Protein backbone atom coordinates (compact mmCIF):
# COMPACT_ATOMS: atom_id res chain seq x y z
CA UNK A 1 0.00 0.00 0.00
CA UNK A 2 1.34 3.37 -0.95
CA UNK A 3 0.50 5.30 2.17
CA UNK A 4 2.76 8.21 1.36
CA UNK A 5 0.20 9.61 -0.98
CA UNK A 6 -2.37 9.98 1.72
CA UNK A 7 0.13 11.33 4.16
CA UNK A 8 -1.11 14.07 6.43
CA UNK A 9 0.77 16.75 8.33
CA UNK A 10 3.53 15.20 10.40
CA UNK A 11 1.98 16.04 13.73
CA UNK A 12 -1.55 15.06 12.75
CA UNK A 13 -1.56 12.08 15.15
CA UNK A 14 -1.44 14.12 18.24
CA UNK A 15 -4.29 16.36 17.33
CA UNK A 16 -6.48 13.77 18.93
CA UNK A 17 -6.36 10.31 20.44
CA UNK A 18 -9.64 9.24 18.95
CA UNK A 19 -9.02 6.33 16.61
CA UNK A 20 -11.92 7.32 14.48
CA UNK A 21 -11.02 10.92 13.90
CA UNK A 22 -10.27 11.86 10.36
CA UNK A 23 -6.80 13.36 11.09
CA UNK A 24 -4.10 10.75 11.10
CA UNK A 25 -6.54 8.07 10.11
CA UNK A 26 -4.63 7.31 6.98
CA UNK A 27 -1.28 6.90 8.85
CA UNK A 28 -0.87 3.16 9.49
CA UNK A 29 1.83 3.77 12.13
CA UNK A 30 -0.42 6.06 14.10
CA UNK A 31 -3.21 3.52 13.80
CA UNK A 32 -0.95 0.72 14.96
CA UNK A 33 0.20 2.69 18.01
CA UNK A 34 -3.35 3.54 18.93
CA UNK A 35 -4.51 -0.04 18.67
CA UNK A 36 -1.55 -2.04 19.99
CA UNK A 37 -1.84 -4.02 23.24
CA UNK A 38 1.42 -2.43 24.34
CA UNK A 39 0.82 0.62 26.50
CA UNK A 40 2.42 3.68 24.96
CA UNK A 41 2.56 7.40 25.59
CA UNK A 42 4.28 10.41 24.08
CA UNK A 43 5.37 13.43 26.08
CA UNK A 44 6.38 16.87 24.89
CA UNK A 45 9.52 18.17 26.58
CA UNK A 46 9.16 21.51 24.83
CA UNK A 47 6.13 22.29 26.93
CA UNK A 48 6.40 23.12 30.64
CA UNK A 49 6.87 20.02 32.86
CA UNK A 50 7.09 17.62 29.90
CA UNK A 51 3.39 16.69 29.81
CA UNK A 52 1.75 13.67 28.16
CA UNK A 53 0.45 14.65 24.75
CA UNK A 54 -0.64 11.23 23.63
CA UNK A 55 -1.71 8.08 25.44
CA UNK A 56 -3.06 4.97 23.74
CA UNK A 57 -5.95 2.85 25.00
CA UNK A 58 -3.60 0.20 26.33
CA UNK A 59 -2.04 2.82 28.63
CA UNK A 60 -5.48 3.85 29.90
CA UNK A 61 -6.42 0.19 30.48
CA UNK A 62 -3.17 -0.45 32.32
CA UNK A 63 -3.37 2.58 34.58
CA UNK A 64 -7.15 2.87 35.01
CA UNK A 65 -7.24 6.57 34.17
CA UNK A 66 -9.39 8.31 31.58
CA UNK A 67 -7.73 10.09 28.71
CA UNK A 68 -8.76 13.50 29.96
CA UNK A 69 -7.12 12.69 33.29
CA UNK A 70 -3.70 12.06 31.78
CA UNK A 71 -3.32 14.35 28.80
CA UNK A 72 -1.41 17.48 29.77
CA UNK A 73 0.05 15.93 32.92
CA UNK A 74 3.55 14.81 33.78
CA UNK A 75 3.84 11.02 34.17
CA UNK A 76 4.87 11.26 37.80
CA UNK A 77 1.25 10.70 38.88
CA UNK A 78 2.07 7.00 38.30
CA UNK A 79 4.53 7.06 41.20
CA UNK A 80 3.62 6.34 44.78
CA UNK A 81 5.08 5.88 48.24
CA UNK A 82 6.74 2.51 47.47
CA UNK A 83 8.24 3.57 44.18
CA UNK A 84 12.00 3.21 44.26
CA UNK A 85 13.62 6.66 44.47
CA UNK A 86 16.70 5.39 42.65
CA UNK A 87 14.56 4.26 39.67
CA UNK A 88 12.91 7.71 39.56
CA UNK A 89 16.31 9.38 39.65
CA UNK A 90 17.50 7.14 36.83
CA UNK A 91 14.56 8.16 34.65
CA UNK A 92 14.98 11.83 35.49
CA UNK A 93 18.67 11.71 34.59
CA UNK A 94 17.95 10.02 31.24
CA UNK A 95 15.37 12.65 30.36
CA UNK A 96 17.74 15.45 31.25
CA UNK A 97 20.44 13.81 29.11
CA UNK A 98 17.93 13.15 26.32
CA UNK A 99 18.94 9.52 26.44
CA UNK A 100 17.24 6.12 26.29
CA UNK A 101 16.32 4.47 29.54
CA UNK A 102 14.95 1.07 30.42
CA UNK A 103 13.95 0.48 34.02
CA UNK A 104 11.61 -1.66 36.11
CA UNK A 105 9.60 0.65 38.34
CA UNK A 106 6.69 0.15 40.74
CA UNK A 107 3.75 2.28 39.52
CA UNK A 108 0.29 3.02 40.93
CA UNK A 109 -3.05 2.74 39.15
CA UNK A 110 -5.88 5.19 39.66
CA UNK A 111 -7.45 2.83 42.21
CA UNK A 112 -4.21 2.79 44.22
CA UNK A 113 -3.22 -0.77 43.25
CA UNK A 114 0.34 -1.23 42.10
CA UNK A 115 1.99 -2.93 39.14
CA UNK A 116 5.56 -3.45 38.05
CA UNK A 117 6.23 -1.41 34.96
CA UNK A 118 9.02 -2.39 32.58
CA UNK A 119 9.38 1.16 31.34
CA UNK A 120 11.23 2.07 28.20
CA UNK A 121 11.72 5.73 27.26
CA UNK A 122 13.46 7.03 24.19
CA UNK A 123 13.88 10.58 22.87
CA UNK A 124 12.57 11.51 19.41
CA UNK A 125 14.41 14.24 17.53
CA UNK A 126 13.74 15.92 14.20
CA UNK A 127 16.11 15.99 11.25
CA UNK A 128 18.00 18.90 12.76
CA UNK A 129 18.63 16.88 15.88
CA UNK A 130 16.26 18.97 17.98
CA UNK A 131 14.42 17.06 20.68
CA UNK A 132 10.73 16.83 19.78
CA UNK A 133 9.18 14.19 22.01
CA UNK A 134 9.78 11.35 24.36
CA UNK A 135 8.25 8.06 23.43
CA UNK A 136 7.52 5.72 26.34
CA UNK A 137 6.19 2.18 26.46
CA UNK A 138 4.99 0.40 29.58
CA UNK A 139 4.80 -3.33 30.08
CA UNK A 140 3.16 -4.86 33.13
CA UNK A 141 5.77 -7.30 34.47
CA UNK A 142 4.20 -7.83 37.90
CA UNK A 143 4.13 -11.63 37.36
CA UNK A 144 7.81 -11.73 36.48
CA UNK A 145 8.61 -9.51 39.48
CA UNK A 146 6.58 -11.74 41.76
CA UNK A 147 8.55 -14.82 40.72
CA UNK A 148 11.77 -12.88 40.98
CA UNK A 149 10.78 -11.87 44.47
CA UNK A 150 9.86 -15.43 45.29
CA UNK A 151 13.22 -16.68 44.03
CA UNK A 152 15.02 -13.96 46.00
CA UNK A 153 12.98 -14.80 49.09
CA UNK A 154 13.73 -18.51 48.65
CA UNK A 155 17.38 -17.72 48.16
CA UNK A 156 17.38 -15.51 51.24
CA UNK A 157 15.64 -18.23 53.21
CA UNK A 158 18.16 -20.86 52.11
CA UNK A 159 21.06 -18.52 52.75
CA UNK A 160 19.68 -17.78 56.18
CA UNK A 161 19.27 -21.50 56.89
CA UNK A 162 22.81 -22.21 55.69
CA UNK A 163 24.11 -19.31 57.76
CA UNK A 164 22.31 -20.57 60.85
CA UNK A 165 23.59 -24.09 60.33
CA UNK A 166 27.12 -22.82 59.74
CA UNK A 167 26.90 -20.74 62.91
CA UNK A 168 25.70 -23.81 64.83
CA UNK A 169 28.57 -25.89 63.49
CA UNK A 170 31.07 -23.13 64.18
CA UNK A 171 29.76 -22.83 67.73
CA UNK A 172 30.03 -26.61 68.16
CA UNK A 173 33.58 -26.56 66.81
CA UNK A 174 34.42 -23.60 69.04
CA UNK A 175 33.05 -25.48 72.05
CA UNK A 176 35.05 -28.54 71.08
CA UNK A 177 38.22 -26.50 70.61
CA UNK A 178 37.71 -24.80 73.97
CA UNK A 179 37.17 -28.18 75.59
CA UNK A 180 40.28 -29.58 73.91
CA UNK A 181 42.34 -26.62 75.11
CA UNK A 182 40.94 -26.98 78.59
CA UNK A 183 41.74 -30.69 78.72
CA UNK A 184 45.16 -30.07 77.17
CA UNK A 185 45.84 -27.38 79.76
CA UNK A 186 44.86 -29.72 82.59
CA UNK A 187 46.90 -32.62 81.26
CA UNK A 188 49.96 -30.39 81.03
CA UNK A 189 49.45 -28.90 84.48
CA UNK A 190 48.90 -32.33 85.98
CA UNK A 191 52.04 -33.70 84.35
CA UNK A 192 53.90 -30.74 85.79
CA UNK A 193 52.46 -31.51 89.23
CA UNK A 194 53.38 -35.19 89.00
CA UNK A 195 56.97 -34.19 88.16
CA UNK A 196 56.98 -31.71 91.03
CA UNK A 197 55.69 -34.32 93.48
CA UNK A 198 58.39 -36.78 92.47
CA UNK A 199 61.15 -34.17 92.70
CA UNK A 200 59.99 -33.01 96.13
CA UNK A 201 59.63 -36.56 97.43
CA UNK A 202 63.05 -37.41 96.05
CA UNK A 203 64.64 -34.56 98.02
CA UNK A 204 63.54 -36.12 101.29
CA UNK A 205 65.02 -39.54 100.48
CA UNK A 206 68.48 -40.51 101.70
CA UNK A 207 68.78 -43.97 100.15
CA UNK A 208 70.71 -43.68 96.86
CA UNK A 209 69.00 -46.65 95.16
CA UNK A 210 65.52 -45.25 95.89
CA UNK A 211 66.66 -41.83 94.73
CA UNK A 212 67.87 -43.37 91.46
CA UNK A 213 64.52 -45.13 90.98
CA UNK A 214 62.67 -41.89 91.47
CA UNK A 215 64.99 -40.17 89.03
CA UNK A 216 64.30 -42.83 86.39
CA UNK A 217 60.60 -42.42 87.02
CA UNK A 218 60.93 -38.64 86.67
CA UNK A 219 62.74 -39.08 83.36
CA UNK A 220 59.91 -41.24 82.02
CA UNK A 221 57.29 -38.74 83.13
CA UNK A 222 59.31 -35.90 81.66
CA UNK A 223 59.45 -37.77 78.36
CA UNK A 224 55.64 -37.83 78.44
CA UNK A 225 55.67 -34.13 79.37
CA UNK A 226 57.86 -33.35 76.39
CA UNK A 227 55.41 -35.22 74.15
CA UNK A 228 52.51 -33.21 75.54
CA UNK A 229 54.32 -29.92 75.26
CA UNK A 230 54.95 -30.69 71.59
CA UNK A 231 51.61 -32.36 70.88
CA UNK A 232 49.30 -29.38 70.55
CA UNK A 233 51.83 -26.93 69.15
CA UNK A 234 50.83 -27.77 65.61
CA UNK A 235 47.41 -26.91 64.20
CA UNK A 236 46.61 -30.53 63.45
CA UNK A 237 46.29 -32.15 66.86
CA UNK A 238 46.14 -35.67 65.43
CA UNK A 239 49.74 -35.58 64.14
CA UNK A 240 53.04 -35.39 65.91
CA UNK A 241 56.46 -34.41 64.61
CA UNK A 242 58.70 -36.99 66.18
CA UNK A 243 62.02 -35.44 65.04
CA UNK A 244 61.36 -32.15 66.88
CA UNK A 245 60.52 -34.19 69.94
CA UNK A 246 63.68 -36.29 69.69
CA UNK A 247 65.81 -33.15 69.49
CA UNK A 248 64.20 -31.71 72.65
CA UNK A 249 64.47 -35.01 74.49
CA UNK A 250 68.12 -35.76 73.69
CA UNK A 251 69.26 -32.19 74.38
CA UNK A 252 67.43 -32.28 77.68
CA UNK A 253 68.74 -35.69 78.77
CA UNK A 254 72.32 -34.85 77.82
CA UNK A 255 72.41 -31.52 79.67
CA UNK A 256 70.62 -33.09 82.63
CA UNK A 257 73.29 -35.80 82.82
CA UNK A 258 75.83 -33.03 83.39
CA UNK A 259 78.39 -34.98 81.36
CA UNK A 260 79.53 -32.45 78.84
CA UNK A 261 82.00 -34.97 77.36
CA UNK A 262 79.15 -36.92 75.81
CA UNK A 263 78.09 -35.43 72.51
CA UNK A 264 75.02 -36.13 70.48
CA UNK A 265 74.80 -36.76 66.78
CA UNK A 266 71.32 -36.21 65.43
CA UNK A 267 70.29 -37.23 61.93
CA UNK A 268 66.60 -36.47 61.99
CA UNK A 269 64.33 -36.37 58.99
CA UNK A 270 61.11 -34.52 59.73
CA UNK A 271 58.77 -37.43 60.39
CA UNK A 272 55.12 -37.16 61.27
CA UNK A 273 53.40 -39.94 63.15
CA UNK A 274 49.87 -40.19 64.49
CA UNK A 275 49.36 -38.70 67.93
CA UNK A 276 48.44 -42.08 69.41
CA UNK A 277 51.90 -43.41 68.52
CA UNK A 278 53.65 -40.39 70.02
CA UNK A 279 53.67 -41.59 73.62
CA UNK A 280 55.00 -45.14 73.07
CA UNK A 281 57.64 -43.89 70.60
CA UNK A 282 58.69 -41.18 73.04
CA UNK A 283 58.97 -43.64 75.92
CA UNK A 284 61.05 -46.05 73.84
CA UNK A 285 63.46 -43.35 72.69
CA UNK A 286 63.70 -42.11 76.27
CA UNK A 287 64.54 -45.63 77.56
CA UNK A 288 67.18 -46.21 74.90
CA UNK A 289 68.90 -42.86 75.38
CA UNK A 290 68.84 -42.95 79.18
CA UNK A 291 70.04 -46.56 79.07
CA UNK A 292 72.98 -45.59 76.91
CA UNK A 293 73.77 -42.66 79.18
CA UNK A 294 73.70 -44.88 82.25
CA UNK A 295 75.50 -47.96 81.04
CA UNK A 296 77.43 -47.39 77.84
CA UNK A 297 80.09 -45.00 79.02
CA UNK A 298 82.78 -45.62 81.58
CA UNK A 299 84.42 -42.84 83.46
CA UNK A 300 87.94 -42.11 82.33
CA UNK A 301 90.91 -41.85 84.69
CA UNK A 302 90.46 -38.06 84.87
CA UNK A 303 86.90 -38.47 86.19
CA UNK A 304 85.20 -37.31 82.99
CA UNK A 305 83.21 -39.35 80.54
CA UNK A 306 83.58 -38.99 76.83
CA UNK A 307 81.49 -40.53 74.11
CA UNK A 308 78.85 -40.07 71.50
CA UNK A 309 75.15 -40.89 71.35
CA UNK A 310 73.56 -40.90 67.91
CA UNK A 311 69.93 -40.81 66.94
CA UNK A 312 68.89 -41.32 63.38
CA UNK A 313 65.31 -41.20 62.19
CA UNK A 314 64.31 -42.00 58.64
CA UNK A 315 61.26 -43.18 56.78
CA UNK A 316 62.11 -45.49 53.93
CA UNK A 317 59.03 -46.54 52.00
CA UNK A 318 56.09 -46.78 54.40
CA UNK A 319 58.32 -47.47 57.38
CA UNK A 320 59.59 -45.40 60.25
CA UNK A 321 63.05 -46.32 61.48
CA UNK A 322 64.79 -45.15 64.63
CA UNK A 323 68.42 -45.93 65.34
CA UNK A 324 69.88 -45.16 68.73
CA UNK A 325 73.61 -45.77 68.84
CA UNK A 326 76.51 -45.20 71.19
CA UNK A 327 80.25 -45.74 71.00
CA UNK A 328 80.46 -47.07 74.52
CA UNK A 329 81.43 -50.36 76.11
CA UNK A 330 79.16 -52.54 73.99
CA UNK A 331 76.38 -54.98 74.71
CA UNK A 332 78.38 -57.65 76.49
CA UNK A 333 79.37 -55.21 79.16
CA UNK A 334 76.03 -53.43 79.41
CA UNK A 335 73.64 -56.09 80.43
CA UNK A 336 70.16 -55.03 81.37
CA UNK A 337 68.04 -57.70 79.76
CA UNK A 338 65.99 -58.47 82.81
CA UNK A 339 65.41 -54.84 83.78
CA UNK A 340 62.07 -53.10 83.81
CA UNK A 341 63.36 -50.68 81.19
CA UNK A 342 64.04 -53.54 78.78
CA UNK A 343 60.59 -55.04 79.36
CA UNK A 344 59.09 -51.60 78.77
CA UNK A 345 60.90 -51.23 75.45
CA UNK A 346 59.82 -54.69 74.27
CA UNK A 347 56.19 -54.19 75.25
CA UNK A 348 56.03 -50.77 73.57
CA UNK A 349 57.59 -52.30 70.46
CA UNK A 350 54.81 -54.90 70.40
CA UNK A 351 52.18 -52.18 70.77
CA UNK A 352 53.67 -50.32 67.79
CA UNK A 353 54.16 -53.51 65.70
CA UNK A 354 57.80 -52.58 65.65
CA UNK A 355 60.81 -54.78 65.08
CA UNK A 356 63.58 -54.07 67.52
CA UNK A 357 67.11 -55.31 67.19
CA UNK A 358 70.26 -54.82 69.26
CA UNK A 359 73.39 -54.82 67.15
CA UNK A 360 77.02 -54.83 68.16
CA UNK A 361 78.34 -51.68 66.57
CA UNK A 362 81.95 -52.29 67.59
CA UNK A 363 82.57 -49.99 69.37
CA UNK A 364 79.32 -49.64 71.18
CA UNK A 365 75.79 -50.68 70.54
CA UNK A 366 73.20 -49.80 67.95
CA UNK A 367 69.50 -50.37 68.55
CA UNK A 368 67.38 -50.39 65.43
CA UNK A 369 63.61 -50.01 65.65
CA UNK A 370 61.51 -50.32 62.53
CA UNK A 371 57.75 -49.94 62.40
CA UNK A 372 55.14 -49.48 59.72
CA UNK A 373 54.10 -45.83 59.35
CA UNK A 374 51.41 -45.48 56.72
CA UNK A 375 51.02 -41.94 55.43
CA UNK A 376 48.58 -40.35 57.85
CA UNK A 377 45.37 -39.04 56.35
CA UNK A 378 43.57 -36.26 58.13
CA UNK A 379 40.62 -37.47 60.12
CA UNK A 380 41.48 -41.16 59.94
CA UNK A 381 42.01 -41.30 63.67
CA UNK A 382 39.01 -42.50 65.57
Amino acid at each position, binding site marked *: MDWKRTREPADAWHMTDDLHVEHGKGDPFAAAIRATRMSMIITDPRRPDNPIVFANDAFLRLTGYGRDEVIGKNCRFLQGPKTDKAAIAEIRAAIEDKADVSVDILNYRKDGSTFWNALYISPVSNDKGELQFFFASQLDVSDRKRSEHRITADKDRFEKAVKERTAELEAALEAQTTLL*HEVDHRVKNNL*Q*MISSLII*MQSRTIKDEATKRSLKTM*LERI*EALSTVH*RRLYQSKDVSRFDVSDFAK*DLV*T*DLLTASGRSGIKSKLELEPIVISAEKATPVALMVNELVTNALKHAFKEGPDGTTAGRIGIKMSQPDGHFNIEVSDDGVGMAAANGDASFGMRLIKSLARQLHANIEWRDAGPGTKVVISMPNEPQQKGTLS
Partner: protein
Amino acid sequence: MIEPLKVLIVEDEALLAMELESLVEEAGHSVVGWATSSAEAKSMVDSTDADIAFVDIHLTDGPTGVDVAHYIGERKRSMVVFMTANPKRIPDHFAGAIGVIAKPYTMNGLTSALRYLQEGVRRPPPVSQRPAGFTLSPAFEAVWAPAA
Protein backbone atom coordinates in the same frame (compact mmCIF):
# COMPACT_ATOMS: atom_id res chain seq x y z
CA MET B 1 80.61 -15.59 88.70
CA ILE B 2 77.41 -13.90 87.67
CA GLU B 3 75.28 -12.38 90.38
CA PRO B 4 72.24 -14.57 91.17
CA LEU B 5 68.70 -13.44 90.37
CA LYS B 6 65.92 -12.31 92.69
CA VAL B 7 62.82 -14.08 91.51
CA LEU B 8 59.12 -13.34 92.00
CA ILE B 9 56.81 -16.32 91.43
CA VAL B 10 53.29 -15.58 90.18
CA GLU B 11 51.57 -18.97 90.11
CA ASP B 12 48.19 -20.14 91.42
CA GLU B 13 49.15 -23.80 91.91
CA ALA B 14 50.79 -24.16 95.32
CA LEU B 15 52.54 -27.38 94.37
CA LEU B 16 54.12 -25.88 91.27
CA ALA B 17 55.11 -22.72 93.12
CA MET B 18 56.73 -24.78 95.89
CA GLU B 19 58.71 -26.87 93.46
CA LEU B 20 59.69 -23.86 91.37
CA GLU B 21 60.92 -22.15 94.53
CA SER B 22 63.11 -25.17 95.39
CA LEU B 23 64.56 -25.33 91.88
CA VAL B 24 65.24 -21.59 91.83
CA GLU B 25 67.01 -21.78 95.17
CA GLU B 26 68.95 -24.92 94.26
CA ALA B 27 70.25 -23.03 91.24
CA GLY B 28 71.62 -20.39 93.61
CA HIS B 29 68.99 -17.70 93.13
CA SER B 30 66.56 -16.32 95.68
CA VAL B 31 62.79 -16.12 95.71
CA VAL B 32 61.52 -12.75 96.94
CA GLY B 33 57.82 -13.57 96.84
CA TRP B 34 55.01 -15.82 95.71
CA ALA B 35 51.72 -14.37 94.47
CA THR B 36 48.63 -16.33 93.44
CA SER B 37 46.43 -13.53 92.07
CA SER B 38 46.99 -10.47 89.91
CA ALA B 39 46.30 -8.07 92.81
CA GLU B 40 48.76 -9.87 95.05
CA ALA B 41 51.30 -9.94 92.24
CA LYS B 42 50.99 -6.20 91.61
CA SER B 43 51.47 -5.28 95.25
CA MET B 44 54.49 -7.60 95.47
CA VAL B 45 55.98 -6.05 92.36
CA ASP B 46 55.81 -2.70 94.16
CA SER B 47 57.11 -3.97 97.51
CA THR B 48 59.98 -6.22 96.32
CA ASP B 49 62.95 -5.63 94.09
CA ALA B 50 62.70 -8.74 91.92
CA ASP B 51 64.94 -8.98 88.86
CA ILE B 52 62.61 -11.35 87.14
CA ALA B 53 59.04 -12.54 87.58
CA PHE B 54 57.83 -15.96 86.45
CA VAL B 55 54.20 -15.34 85.60
CA ASP B 56 51.57 -17.99 84.94
CA ILE B 57 48.81 -16.81 82.58
CA HIS B 58 46.07 -18.38 84.66
CA LEU B 59 45.85 -17.08 88.24
CA THR B 60 43.24 -17.41 90.97
CA ASP B 61 41.36 -14.39 89.59
CA GLY B 62 41.30 -15.68 86.00
CA PRO B 63 43.55 -15.34 82.97
CA THR B 64 45.16 -12.18 84.37
CA GLY B 65 48.85 -13.07 83.91
CA VAL B 66 49.16 -10.90 80.79
CA ASP B 67 47.76 -7.98 82.78
CA VAL B 68 50.39 -8.58 85.48
CA ALA B 69 53.10 -8.60 82.79
CA HIS B 70 51.87 -5.22 81.51
CA TYR B 71 51.95 -3.83 85.05
CA ILE B 72 55.50 -5.05 85.61
CA GLY B 73 56.54 -3.69 82.22
CA GLU B 74 55.27 -0.21 83.09
CA ARG B 75 57.31 -0.12 86.32
CA LYS B 76 60.48 -1.03 84.37
CA ARG B 77 62.14 -2.58 87.43
CA SER B 78 61.74 -6.29 86.70
CA MET B 79 61.57 -8.50 83.66
CA VAL B 80 58.87 -11.05 82.97
CA VAL B 81 58.93 -14.64 81.77
CA PHE B 82 55.61 -16.38 81.24
CA MET B 83 55.22 -19.93 82.50
CA THR B 84 52.11 -21.49 81.10
CA ALA B 85 50.55 -24.68 79.79
CA ASN B 86 48.66 -22.53 77.33
CA PRO B 87 51.20 -20.45 75.37
CA LYS B 88 48.53 -19.66 72.77
CA ARG B 89 46.96 -17.22 75.23
CA ILE B 90 50.03 -15.01 75.13
CA PRO B 91 49.51 -11.99 72.86
CA ASP B 92 51.83 -11.64 69.87
CA HIS B 93 53.67 -8.71 71.48
CA PHE B 94 54.22 -10.79 74.66
CA ALA B 95 53.23 -7.78 76.81
CA GLY B 96 56.91 -6.88 76.99
CA ALA B 97 57.94 -10.25 78.44
CA ILE B 98 61.26 -11.93 77.60
CA GLY B 99 59.58 -15.14 76.51
CA VAL B 100 57.73 -18.20 77.71
CA ILE B 101 58.66 -21.44 79.44
CA ALA B 102 56.01 -23.87 78.23
CA LYS B 103 54.54 -26.23 80.81
CA PRO B 104 55.14 -29.04 81.38
CA TYR B 105 58.83 -28.19 81.59
CA THR B 106 61.43 -30.71 82.64
CA MET B 107 63.59 -30.23 85.68
CA ASN B 108 66.61 -29.78 83.46
CA GLY B 109 64.63 -27.55 81.10
CA LEU B 110 63.92 -25.18 83.95
CA THR B 111 67.47 -25.26 85.32
CA SER B 112 68.82 -24.51 81.84
CA ALA B 113 66.27 -21.72 81.41
CA LEU B 114 67.37 -20.18 84.72
CA ARG B 115 71.01 -20.20 83.60
CA TYR B 116 70.06 -18.73 80.23
CA LEU B 117 67.94 -16.01 81.88
CA GLN B 118 70.62 -15.21 84.44
CA GLU B 119 73.06 -14.54 81.61
CA GLY B 120 70.42 -12.62 79.66
CA VAL B 121 69.45 -10.39 82.57
CA ARG B 122 72.94 -9.81 83.99
CA ARG B 123 75.14 -9.93 80.90
CA PRO B 124 73.00 -9.84 77.78
CA PRO B 125 72.96 -11.45 75.36
CA PRO B 126 73.04 -14.94 76.92
CA VAL B 127 75.78 -17.30 75.79
CA SER B 128 74.22 -20.63 76.79
CA GLN B 129 72.14 -22.57 74.32
CA ARG B 130 68.46 -21.69 74.50
CA PRO B 131 66.78 -24.63 76.29
CA ALA B 132 64.07 -26.76 74.71
CA GLY B 133 60.64 -25.54 75.72
CA PHE B 134 61.79 -21.94 76.10
CA THR B 135 60.56 -19.48 73.48
CA LEU B 136 61.76 -15.89 73.20
CA SER B 137 59.37 -13.07 72.41
CA PRO B 138 59.94 -11.48 68.97
CA ALA B 139 61.41 -8.35 70.61
CA PHE B 140 63.92 -10.32 72.70
CA GLU B 141 64.64 -12.74 69.87
CA ALA B 142 65.89 -9.74 67.87
CA VAL B 143 68.31 -8.71 70.63
CA TRP B 144 69.28 -11.96 72.33
CA ALA B 145 69.30 -14.33 69.39
CA PRO B 146 69.55 -12.32 66.19
CA ALA B 147 69.56 -14.46 63.07
CA ALA B 148 73.11 -14.55 61.72
